[in-house]
């Protein structure tokens, strides 16, 4: 009976994941043992977990490691994304308490689920094995299905959860089938090994099975990042889900989708770059255009932001299509700033809403600036950043994305991108028109300015403005984090 020799396992690369899991589980247990009036502490505890995980990733910067026989890695790319995930999770937690209390939801499970979802995202970013990526994706997705339908008493939330679940599971099927075929064609599920195999076997490796596998995987990922034509779920889910979760979904998981998508395409299929660039070109154009065009006539602000988030995925795809370091760094930077600006915008949407009546209609914002000038200013900053106006992080991000495309010679793509971005200004301005240029119809006296939400807004404003004015440091980080 021979002993099985196991590979040396280094836990350092998955330290943040471990911390989050431990905190998540601890919170679950704490949740069932503390009386319901003390559940607010769960939020603080989960923030501690987020910060602890954040601390654990700092030391890993610039120290490439891999573990579990190459199933997970710790590289700058993964770490940068982990930072984005932690950030969006932290901001989401800040805005959750207020909302959930108002809607009368039981928050006990909320925080563990957010932590688990974040853990899943991290796994997606650091996984270098299709299996790890898949597992991360599913940990994320399953948590999100619940989070989307978290407000059980609310019909829209139910619908959002169900819809997200059905379509999400459906897309998982495609992703998996793609992974299976890729595995069949190359004989491995390790992403770097796939690349090695293709490099070694050249055209022989590029069987129909291989191409179909890549295509199916791409469509699976495209669903997760809500790229057209796989975006149909986004508006309904974003509209129906509890607002903090909408904020979370649009920031974290989308970035995670990009992380996995980028790693798979860039690392595993570098030799097929011409093929997937063409594919992404089409995806990017469709995604930007469809997202923007439909967003133009949305009255519901959550829905409008949902379509805008589709459009933003399109901009990020522009950088991806470029397939060069600028484009990739642009995606990293953009995802980071998108987390700030989008969650910030949602934080204000949460403040404006009241129980049962979320005031999500654009017209509900009439005269908001008169009543709450500072909040309106913050909202304006977020919206300008989303629209890509300087001097905000949104502009720098877009600049990088489009620069990448231009450098790679995709000038037309960049032009379509900027035209889209100009069109998108219309619907962002619309909100501002209501906030600043219409007379108030409401007193907005139901609003309670919860300190946690205000803190979130403050962080978001700083996170939008500072990188917009002095982006060097962050861009530098993003540059160092790209896989290319």
């Amino acid at each position, binding site marked *: 009976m021979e002993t099985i020799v196991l590979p040396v396992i280094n836990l350092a690369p998955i330290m943040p994941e471990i911390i989050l899991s431990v905190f998540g589980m601890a919170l679950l247990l704490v949740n069932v043992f503390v009386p319901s009036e003390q559940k607010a502490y769960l939020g603080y505890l989960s923030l501690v977990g987020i910060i602890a995980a954040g601390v654990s990733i700092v030391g890993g910067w610039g120290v490439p490691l891999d573990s579990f026989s190459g199933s997970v890695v710790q590289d700058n790319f993964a770490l940068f994304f982990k930072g984005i995930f932690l950030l969006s999770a932290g901001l989401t937690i800040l805005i959750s308490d207020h909302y959930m209390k108002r809607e009368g939801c039981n928050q006990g499970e909320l925080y563990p689920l957010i932590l688990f979802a974040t853990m899943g995202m991290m796994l997606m970013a650091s996984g270098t094995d299709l299996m790890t990526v898949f597992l991360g994706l599913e940990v994320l997705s399953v948590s999100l299905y619940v989070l989307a339908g978290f407000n059980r008493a609310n019909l829209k939330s139910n619908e959002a959860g169900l819809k997200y679940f059905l379509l999400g599971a459906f897309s998982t099927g495609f992703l998996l089938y793609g992974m299976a075929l890729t595995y069949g064609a190359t004989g491995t599920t390790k992403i770097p090994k796939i690349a090695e195999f293709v490099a070694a076997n050249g055209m022989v490796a590029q069987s129909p099975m291989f191409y179909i596998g890549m295509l199916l995987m791409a469509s699976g990922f495209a669903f997760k990042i809500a790229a057209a034509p796989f975006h149909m779920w986004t508006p309904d889910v974003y509209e129906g889900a509890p607002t903090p979760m909408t904020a979370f979904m649009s920031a974290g998981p989308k970035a995670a989708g990009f992380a996995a998508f980028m790693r798979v395409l860039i690392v595993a299929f570098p030799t097929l770059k011409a093929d997937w660039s063409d594919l992404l070109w089409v995806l990017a154009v469709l995604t930007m255009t469809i997202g923007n065009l439909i967003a133009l006539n949305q009255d519901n602000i959550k829905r409008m932001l949902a379509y805008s988030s589709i459009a933003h995925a399109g901009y990020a795809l522009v950088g991806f299509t470029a397939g060069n370091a600028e484009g990739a760094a642009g995606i990293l930077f953009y995802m980071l700033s998108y987390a700030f600006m989008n969650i910030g915008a949602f934080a204000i949407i949460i403040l404006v809403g009241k129980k049962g009546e979320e005031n999500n209609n654009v017209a509900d914002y009439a005269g908001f600036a008169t009543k709450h000038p500072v909040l309106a200013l913050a909202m304006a900053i977020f919206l300008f950043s989303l629209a890509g106006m300087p001097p905000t992080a949104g502009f720098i991000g877009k600049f990088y994305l489009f*620069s990448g495309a231009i450098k790679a010679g995709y000038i037309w793509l960049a*032009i379509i991108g900027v035209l889209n971005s*100009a069109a998108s*200004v219309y619907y962002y*301005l619309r909100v501002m028109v209501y906030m600043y*240029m219409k007379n108030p119809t409401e007193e907005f006296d139901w609003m309670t300015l919860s300190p946690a939400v205000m803190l979130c807004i403050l962080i978001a404003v700083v996170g939008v403005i500072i990188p917009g004015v002095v982006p060097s440091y962050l861009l530098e980080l993003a540059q160092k984090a790209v896989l290319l």
Partner: protein
Amino acid sequence: MSQFPLISVMTFLPLLGVVLLFFVPKQSHSVHRMLALLVSLVTFVVSIPLVTGFQSNADFQFVEKMPWIAAGPFQMNYHVAIDGISLWLVLLTTFIMPIAILSTWTAVEEKVKEYMICLLLLEVGMLGAFVSLDLFLFYIFWEVMLIPMYFIIGIWGGKNKIYAAVKFFIYTMVGSMLMLVALVTLYFKAGAGDFNVLRFYEVTLDPATQVWMFLAFALAFAIKVPMFPLHTWLPDAHTEAPTAGSVILAAVLLKMGTYGFVRFAMPLFPDATDKFTPLIATLSVIGIIYAALVAMVQEDVKKLVAYSSVAHLGYVMLGVFALNLQGLSGGMLQMLNHGVSTGALFLIVGFIYERRHTRLITDFGGLAKQMPVFATIFMIVTLSSIGLPGTNGFVGEFLVLLGAFESELRWYAVIGTSGVILAAVYMLWMFQRVMFGELTNPKNQTLCDLNAREVGIMLPLLVLIFVMGVYPTPFIEKMSPSLEKLIVHVKTKQQGAVAQVETVPAAPQVMPAAAVVPAEHK
């Protein structure tokens, strides 16, 4: 770099005002007004040493340069300086700002704090755009200007303000976004380095690329100018904006477009400039005639003035694209003139609008009897706008037409001249309908004349109208070297390109010829 960062101080001084305003309580409107006025005056004072310290040569002066963003392939600097081209525009901006603030001293009653913040932010944007030598920095300021202007029109504007504001924003945005693409393309074509515009001047691009990039830049600038047929946002924006907005829009923002042509589009893409000169000249002339004709039938005084702006800027474009010293300096001067006289016109429209809350020509008539001071001032400004000799308008238009006549744009100049006559027709006709005749409307009989503040606002403008009309030399003197340098640069590169295309031995012949050009004007 050890010298005093005069430009930065000037540019960001209004920002300091913004910060201060944040801390002033919401209700103390008079404090807001005073503070904003004070800041803008100080800014103006700070900008005066730029003129006095300016050496009349072609160099960039008061240079400040420090690294700003450095990441990946990009290197952006905070690089500001002025030369003869931007000097006067900067001065015009700092000069117009206090006037603009004063102009809506009483007209804006609501959200005064926000209003003043917007105005001051706008000033930062405009000054920044004029002084930037780094294309990226320029772009940032260019876009930043949009936001406060959008709010000024949208919040404090007239009935149709939202439509006008959004239209203004989106028009400008579309153009500038394409410019961004071209800008990045240019950067990559130029190879490693920074966004310094002077560096880009030296880059030689193949004519086909130039065409595309010129189009992208030109679109952005042409929208801003605005050139026919991209001008449709302007009448709306002007009509709906509060007086200060209109004044700034006319006096400074539109110059941003023409300035863009002079500073960027032409020197960067000389071959394309050459190629597109006929087209632009055609559009300018169409603009002159068309705008004049449309102005003639306007019912609304403010709209009429807005269309006259379109016509005036047609002259500027014509002069600029004549690409000789007369034309260019005429164009530059016309920019200043237009800033002064159209700004003044908008102020005047603002005065009567404040009194009567209408701008329809038919609502007035015979005001001269009731308001003699007003009538006098209005007359002077109208004449200046028409370009009567002795006023500033004349010098500019004359130089433009002269320059155009001397260049290959001769026939355009001929047609453009008719615009002068048309301008006289519609301006005077309007003046006559408003000021003379029977004082029929009873509401007009109680109108009171301009008060001290209003006269005080107008006085500096009137002074300038005459000074620039009678003694324009100092203005031209300071800008000429820079303009000459520009002309040489553009022409050399145009011919250089031709030489490259043609036979190689032709090149040495061209070089001395290019060197001769400035000598002619000395």
